[in-house]
């Protein structure tokens, strides 16, 4: 099985935003909707300062919190590692938008659905590269199958200086001197999602079950050996 990933050689990124626009054009996005973003970072100490660019997008997490919270199963991770949204199933509740630790998801007001980078899964199916990779002037982006040793990304990922964002499908080659925290953090499952899915729901369901059980038991005990019933008791007067 394939394991798709993207490597961005930030040393080659000139911050032209062509990837952002190519992506928007590819997917017919609203102007404020960006699946891939280019942010500029400045670092160093005067007069030794640098200005570089960091691109961000959906990280296609190994264990995606967005998939966990989706009530309809619209968001899911494919076997090849790509996290996609089935737009027909999306009801626009935006739970995923909040759950995503990378802020990679966007809400399409006009269509009332959530959208994000899908590594251009549709283009891949047609044998094309993702739009951002295709358009990148500096050829900073490499996309491919990490499990295929002959692929460009497999070869590139083994060279020194490559930083793999742990738990995700994204790799970067940061420019010299760029602090790690200028890049997206390693994936960590957000506390509010685990609190919700692993504590609140099981405990809540147990509580509902216990109450129902107590009610059924009470119903049984009251039927089997009816105590002094309200209607039939004559003890007063």
């Amino acid at each position: 099985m394939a394991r798709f990933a993207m490597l961005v050689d930030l040393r080659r990124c000139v911050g032209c935003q062509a990837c952002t626009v190519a992506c928007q054009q590819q997917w017919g996005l609203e102007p404020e909707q960006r699946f891939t973003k280019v942010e500029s970072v400045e670092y160093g100490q005067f007069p030794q300062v640098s200005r570089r660019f960091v691109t961000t997008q959906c990280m296609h997490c190994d264990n995606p919190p967005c998939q966990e919270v989706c009530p309809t199963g619209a968001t899911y991770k494919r076997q090849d590692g790509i996290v996609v949204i089935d737009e027909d199933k999306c009801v626009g509740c935006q739970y995923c938008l909040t759950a995503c630790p990378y802020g990679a998801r966007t809400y399409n007001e006009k269509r009332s659905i959530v959208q994000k980078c899908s590594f251009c899964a549709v283009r891949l199916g047609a044998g094309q590269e993702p739009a951002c990779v295709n358009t990148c002037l500096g050829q900073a982006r490499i996309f491919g199958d990490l499990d295929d040793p002959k692929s460009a990304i497999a070869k590139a990922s083994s060279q020194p200086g490559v930083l793999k964002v742990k738990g995700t499908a994204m790799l970067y080659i940061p420019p010299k001197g760029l602090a790690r925290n200028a890049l997206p953090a390693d994936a960590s499952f957000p506390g509010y999602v685990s609190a919700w899915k692993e504590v609140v729901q099981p405990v809540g369901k147990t509580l509902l079950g216990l109450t129902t059980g107590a009610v059924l038991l009470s119903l049984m005990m009251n039927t089997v050996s009816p105590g002094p019933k309200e209607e039939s008791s004559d003890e007063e007067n």
Partner: protein
Amino acid sequence: MQNEGRVERFNLGERMAHWNHAISFCLLFVTGAALIFRSWGGLLGPHGVKLAQDLHHVMAVPFTFFTLLILLVGTRKTFFAWLKEIFTWGNEDMKFLGRFPREFFGLKVELPEQGKFNAGEKVNSILTIAGSAVMAVTGWILLFRAHFSREVLAWAYPIHDAGALVMGAVIIGHVYLSLLHPRSREAINGMLWGTVTAKFAREHHARWYRQVRQNQATPRPGRKLTSMPAD
């Protein structure tokens, strides 16, 4: 004394507020469940979930505002009396809670005298008030998501969910006791038609019943006993 008649328990305002809250809560619970449980949501399909979502947002209005409005406009006096009573706790109340499990399961037990609301009803009232407040606040935050930070929104979900499940458990017990439990199901008549049998009032709410009798002996406006034939 076979035909002691019936005692007024809840006036029209109290009953309207109760049923507004009950109906909106049940609809919110069912539609909300479709929005968080994939098994239930999957059964409805995306269009069903979308419909559930819309209905959920509409029902938020009567749940948040109408109940309180009805209580404040329609029956302010009993509303405040209720609030005062449910937050007033004595030894009898603790004793009642300790012994109630035996009553619940139909075992022999002597329960201490109770006022208009017994300790269990007080717990139910407090949980409903607190739960409704939590649900309304977190719910409206989620509806007006543009005005809140991601952190606030992120925690609003599990809290909203936890509140719903706790309230769901409470309502299962509440509905059972009022509709099916042989010793307490007379209570539903109080909430449906406004009156309960004098016998039920005396046995379950002795302190309140004495007070009603007293008020009846020295009639005051607004406090009346309806004399309907006992069943």
